[in-house]
């Protein structure tokens, strides 16, 4: 079978041409095909990624009837897809093409022109050997379900549901409590303008419950999930006696399960006995909502209030971001209630990240709230003992103490993470796919995490993430359009697999399952991301990554070590 390989060396303007001897490369490559059945066509071109360059390449493939293609140019990160698209416009299968990086890996880093030339030649020859072992691969198109399941009916979940629901896209919203709204519905007021929280949140809840394309199921939990992006099958059931189970098919899942507050009793350095006037910031929010003012159990207002920030920050290992603002707000409201009440706020650092926060802080401070920076602090009943920045130890007694405990992952986070196949961060919150460049996606394609479930944050940021996730889902799952899963997936050779499950256990995407009858591993192609962990872990080579098989890689290595 005659094979004709086209090798096109891009000069990349001066980037490559100035740093290697193009003519030497042309010569070395043309002498590669020493057997009868391989013919090499090798040419150079000024700039292959340009419009003319791509047209040139397309013509070269067709006219020369090339069976394989090598492009020696810049990094595949830049233009691999460019040339794949060129192939797609011809009869050449794009997986019989290979891009060789002679810019970032060669011309730009090897300063001796002779050495750079030699390296470029080796890389290209390695690619030539490799491409002969490559096989045609074909993209598959899968039907998708555009509907979405939102787990959690707090502010983030409500926002996602409203952003996504449409006549072409149904949203299922499940909430484990019997009411929607989450913590946001319990706040007394929303910063910065201190609008009434309950009203705002209730409006959203009403919109969601009345929406024709959102199905709300309260007092319901997620039981199981199988499938992949565009094709999830989930089972939910109602909590409580009836336990009715419902199955549904969705294309994406958004986790918006929120947070919970750490109990103050977890911190022995703050000793609270029954009946002590010690409250958490959330307790005070509730008190303000109900009674409109701060009062002791006896009914009278306190004469002095101590506010302790950062409770549990050291133990948990992270800042909970919203408490400083919340505590400053509470301080301001106490002063607004009665300016004569002594208010002392004990702080470690101050977390004031948003653009209006500094002004707000100044306002409240101007109302006479004392902010004391401490090195360490503890309390016993209503007596506070702290060490100031001057290293002096001080005791201070109050009529009431308010503590700001850390936010922590909601109950059931670990279980849900396991069901959905998404990892947890070491703090216990869900782990996003990438902290900076992919913050709402997770390791499982099609499963997103938004709001406080992802990490401590306030309503603004939760809403932000909810909208981001909705946007991603809208672009990934377009009703009526199919998706193309990864082509370069792993494959198990049944003849050689001994069913030791090593590949299965190192796969982080859950893309490998076990066939009990045949005692072999099987790859679920639609979930496989082509990372190759499995291929690396199999001692026998019984599982291989398409387009990165052992023989293909070996060919490059042979040339590199020549």
């Amino acid at each position, binding site marked *: 079978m005659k094979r004709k390989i086209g090798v096109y060396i891009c000069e990349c303007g001066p980037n490559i041409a100035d740093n290697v001897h193009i003519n030497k490369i042309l010569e070395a490559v043309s002498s590669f095909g*020493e*057997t009868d059945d391989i013919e090499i066509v090798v040419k150079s071109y000024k700039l292959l990624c340009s419009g003319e360059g791509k047209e040139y390449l397309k013509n070269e493939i067709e006219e020369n009837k090339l069976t394989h293609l090598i492009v020696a140019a810049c990094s595949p990160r830049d233009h691999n897809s460019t040339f794949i698209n060129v192939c797609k416009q011809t009869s050449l299968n794009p997986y019989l093409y290979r891009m060789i990086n002679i810019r970032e890996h060669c011309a730009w880093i090897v300063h001796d022109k002779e050495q750079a030339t030699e390296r470029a030649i080796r890389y290209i020859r390695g690619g030539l050997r490799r491409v002969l072992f490559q096989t045609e691969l074909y993209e598959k198109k899968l039907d998708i379900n555009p509907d979405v399941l939102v787990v959690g009916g707090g502010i983030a979940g409500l926002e996602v549901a409203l952003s996504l629901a449409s006549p072409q896209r149904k949203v299922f919203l499940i909430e484990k409590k019997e009411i929607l709204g989450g913590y946001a519905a319990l706040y007394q007021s929303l910063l910065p303008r201190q609008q009434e929280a309950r009203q705002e949140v209730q409006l959203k809840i009403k919109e969601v419950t009345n929406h024709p394309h959102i199905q709300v199921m309260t007092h319901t939990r997620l039981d199981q999930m199988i499938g992949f992006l565009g094709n999830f099958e989930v089972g939910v059931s109602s909590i409580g006696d009836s336990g009715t189970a419902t199955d549904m098919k969705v294309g994406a899942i958004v986790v918006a399960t929120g947070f919970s507050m750490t109990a103050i009793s977890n911190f022995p350095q703050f000793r609270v006995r029954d009946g002590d006037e010690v409250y958490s910031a959330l307790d005070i929010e509730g008190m303000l909502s109900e009674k409109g003012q701060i009062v002791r159990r006896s009914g009278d207002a306190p004469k002095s209030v101590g506010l302790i920030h950062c409770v549990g920050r050291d133990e948990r290992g992270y800042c909970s971001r919203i408490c400083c603002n919340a505590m400053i707000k509470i301080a301001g409201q106490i002063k607004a209630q009665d300016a004569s009440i002594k208010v002392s706020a004990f702080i470690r650092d101050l977390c004031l990240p948003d653009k209006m926060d500094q002004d707000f802080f100044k306002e409240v401070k101007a109302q006479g709230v004392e902010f004391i920076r401490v090195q360490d602090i503890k309390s016993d009943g209503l007596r506070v003992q702290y060490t100031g920045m001057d290293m002096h130890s001080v005791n201070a007694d109050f009529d009431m103490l308010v503590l700001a405990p850390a936010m922590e992952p909601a109950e059931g986070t670990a279980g849900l993470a396991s069901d959905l196949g998404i990892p947890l961060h070491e703090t216990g919150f869900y782990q996003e796919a990438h902290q900076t460049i992919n913050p709402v996606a997770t390791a499982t394609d099609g499963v997103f995490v938004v709001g406080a479930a992802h990490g401590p944050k306030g309503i603004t940021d939760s809403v932000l993430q909810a909208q981001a996730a909705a946007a991603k889902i809208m672009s990934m799952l377009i009703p009526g359009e199919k998706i193309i899963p990864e082509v370069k997936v792993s494959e198990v050779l*049944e*003849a*050689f697999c001994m069913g030791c499950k090593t590949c299965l256990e190192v796969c982080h995407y859950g893309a490998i399952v076990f066939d009990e009858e045949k*005692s072999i591993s099987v790859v679920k192609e639609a979930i496989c991301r082509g990372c190759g962990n499995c291929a690396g872990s199999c001692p026998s080579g019984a599982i291989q990554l398409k387009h990165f098989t052992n023989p293909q890689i070996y060919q490059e290595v042979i040339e590199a070590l020549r």
Partner: protein
Amino acid sequence: MSKMLKMVSDAEKSIVGFLKYLLDSGKVSGVLTLRQINESGSVDYGLVTRSSELDRAVPLMPVMPVNAAEILSNLTPSRKPLAVVVKPCELRGFIERIKREQGSLENLLVISQTCGGVVPMKVSVKSKNKTLTADYYKAVARGEIPDHIRPTCKACEYFVPMTADITVSMIGEAVSSCRIFLNSDKAVSMAEGFDVPAEDGELDVSITESHLVKRRNERSRLFKQIESEQKGLDDLLQVFGKCIGCHACSRVCPICYCTLCDFESRHFDQNVTLFEKELDQKGGLRLPPDTLFFHLGRMSHMSFSCVGCGQCTDVCPAEIDVSAQFMRTGEMTAARFNYVPGKDVSEEIPVMVFKEEEFQEIGE
């Protein structure tokens, strides 16, 4: 009348000199030969491309760490001319492989010898080939069968290579001299320009014939013993009962070329419920199973191509004389088809050929 070269030094030196000439003159690009790889005397096959690397070559040493047939399969088809020095059974094994598309004679100059036999691996490794070879060469020069060679070598009737381009006369040849016979046009043209001019000469048939008689005696003695061990299942169990199922015999066999032996494939995986049933019915069974089955299966797959090299016996950790068993079965099977393994590359293996008139007796 064929041609020959009459060398002035002993066989080993002469052949090394000839091989150096072939490399230096550019007539071949590489030479496959046995060579010493370290000071302590370990010997390996090597593909040599520089004549200085031939200083340590021992092309005629009576050892066989690996049957060269497998190496030749990996080296061919070769795009450049190579000279290979192999023993007659290795050559016959390679011919059998070629019939199964596992190699090619193209571009090969095959040099072999009238072979006095090979020393078993355990012996050659322990003694590091020193005193043993001295005794060996003396016996061979006298036209006798040396004492400490493989039992299957003692019984080998094909010690004169049948398809080699060049044959080195060893049996019955004086130790200090050497004659090499050029059996093909290729050989004659390769030798042109060598210090020693070619002259007319033929291998002395009387020597080889008388040696053949000795070998035939050994063979019938060996086969008589085997016959008594192959009368039925009980006998076979006596022989193969201690087999540990390592399959080393098949791995080193020049004929066994399958990348994954059927007996190691999924086809032979058994479900535990089968063992449960067998245990119930028979009261006992051996684990792992199919010990004898493997050998019978291997016999049916390749014994008619068996060239009696004896590698299998050498590597068997249970010290079973596998080679003798397979040689005898192989000879009987091949005889049914009038087939001689390794004789002629154009003679197709019986499994690939159907003749209407074969096995008439079964028809009867």
